[in-house]
């Protein structure tokens, strides 16, 4: 019996050991980002001796990138991109998800096959025509251009449909007997019940809008209309060996999302798990 206990304790130590090593691996790049951002170029590139911690914590790299890159504008553009993508996605998917999940009408299956079809093809196949559309509308270098491909969401529609389908059937019957029409049933009874699916879709949409690089890079090339990711891509070419400044900019780009994530970690992880797992 004592042997069992000892073995169990050993296993426990081993498991924590593995998890700690993996956690360190996940954190080191972020820590190195922070440490480098507070160094001078000389300190960051000194090899003999190799320095881990900055001797003096300098703010020069931050002030330099804030002067050059107008981070306030980048935050604003990124925030607007995320806001409108989330708004449109949640709005359209909530409506369509209800109709696909709970109503029966001619044309429903045909329309739903479009949703499934869209999810199966690589997104790059839409990009050239979408770009040409925005260009023909003379809307390049606008917030609209950033939001454009995300006005509707096949994935979100699918997710919300699954959410509605898991609700009990008699809810609508009861609403109907109380004299609600379909619109009222949707608005007052069904939609509020899928709040967790909406939150999941919102988080999912926000994270991927924030991470997107190719589309913002293609449609918005004016300095005033960049978002965080495309601005980072642009600056990399200009700051070749200024490592502290590259890291300071990366840190400034990542920190808002990381803070939001740490505060709402439960919602984030559950949101990603439900939206990823529902497919």
């Amino acid at each position, binding site marked *: 019996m004592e042997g069992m206990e000892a073995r169990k304790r050993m296993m426990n130590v081993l498991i924590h050991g593995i998890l700690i090593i993996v956690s360190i691996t*996940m954190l080191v790049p972020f820590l190195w980002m922070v440490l480098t951002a507070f160094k001078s170029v000389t300190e960051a590139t000194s090899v003999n001796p190799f320095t881990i911690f900055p001797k003096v914590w300098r703010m020069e790299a931050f002030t330099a990138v804030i002067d050059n890159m107008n981070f306030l504008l980048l935050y604003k553009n990124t925030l607007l991109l995320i806001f409108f993508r989330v708004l449109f996605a949640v709005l359209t998917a909530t409506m369509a998800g209800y109709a696909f999940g709970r109503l029966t009408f001619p044309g429903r299956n045909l329309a739903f096959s479009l949703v499934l079809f869209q999810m199966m093809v690589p997104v790059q196949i839409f990009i050239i025509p979408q770009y040409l559309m925005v260009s023909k509308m003379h809307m390049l270098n606008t917030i609209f251009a950033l939001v454009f491909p995300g006005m509707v969401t096949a994935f979100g529609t699918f997710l919300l449909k699954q959410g509605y389908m898991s609700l009990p059937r008699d809810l609508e019957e009861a609403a109907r007997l109380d004299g609600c029409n379909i619109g009222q049933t949707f608005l007052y009874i069904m939609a509020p019940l899928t709040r967790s699916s909406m939150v999941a879709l919102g988080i999912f949409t926000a994270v991927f809008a924030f991470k997107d690089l190719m589309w913002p890079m293609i449609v918005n090339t004016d300095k005033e209309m960049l978002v965080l990711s495309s601005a980072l891509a642009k600056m990399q070419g200009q700051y070749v060996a200024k490592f502290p400044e590259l890291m300071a900019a990366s840190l400034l*780009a990542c920190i808002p999302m990381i803070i939001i994530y740490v505060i709402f970690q439960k919602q984030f992880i559950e949101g990603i798990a439900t939206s990823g797992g529902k497919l």
Partner: protein
Amino acid sequence: MANTKSKAKTGRQRSEFLWGWLFILPTTIGLVVLNIIPIFQTIYQSFFKTGDFGKGNIFVGLSNYEKVFGDKEVWQALINTLKYAIVEVPFSIAIALVLAVLLNRKMKGRSVYRTIIFLPMVAAPAAVAMVWRWLFNSDFGLINNVFKVHVNWVSSPQIAVFSVAVIGVWSIIGYNMVLFLSGLQEIPRDYYEAAEIDGATGVNAFFHITIPLLSPTLFFVLVTRVIGALQVFDLIYMVIDKSNPALSKTQSLVYLFYKYSFVNKNMGYGSTIVVLLLAITMIITVFQMIGQKKWVFYN
């Protein structure tokens, strides 16, 4: 009586029809305009040559396809993409699976580990790529200096694509792990208890209970990860400069698509490359769908 009932029924049907279409209209129009028509436009575009100032669109028939099949750069990009996928997919899935199994129990620090391992998921790939490029720096990078080696991680043509794949694995482990964790929570505890009585614990239980019961989740993650890996772009674009000697041995199909469509402005050839990507993705997905019958259990 029967008459009013059927009248009520048709009234109900008509109202479901009207409301239903009202609700799906924005999404349906959006999908048709933003996605369905563009698919055909891209395929159509692949029969044209664009660019060459002032010449606009010239119909070239199948010549873009002839060019693609004879284009060494495209074949190399396909090989690079597959190399990336062959590292990223299995490693990110295997490591994430082990972590999910380790975390699928009551233990101290569970949510702290989960939060940290998922963290790379909320960082922008552009920033992630810049940091890793700095970590990989051959002269001043943390990795070479800590391990006292001098490897050209991202500029040696032989290894650069694998270095990028390491970044890909690091970025995606947390995501896969979270999906596995939610899959594992659906497996009833009694299965393990019953197995324990039969003497199956640890590794044995993992292969005989966890893997089969998790196989639908595993399959879903595998299919989506393969599709994602075939579309790799951000990391390569950010880590490998245009002047990097390893560029031709790392650029992916989507990288070439971007280069031809939006840098060289030959949207015809860019479209051809993306149609090729579509075909490859579909072939691989179909094979996975056929293969799943052998190992995925749905109850």
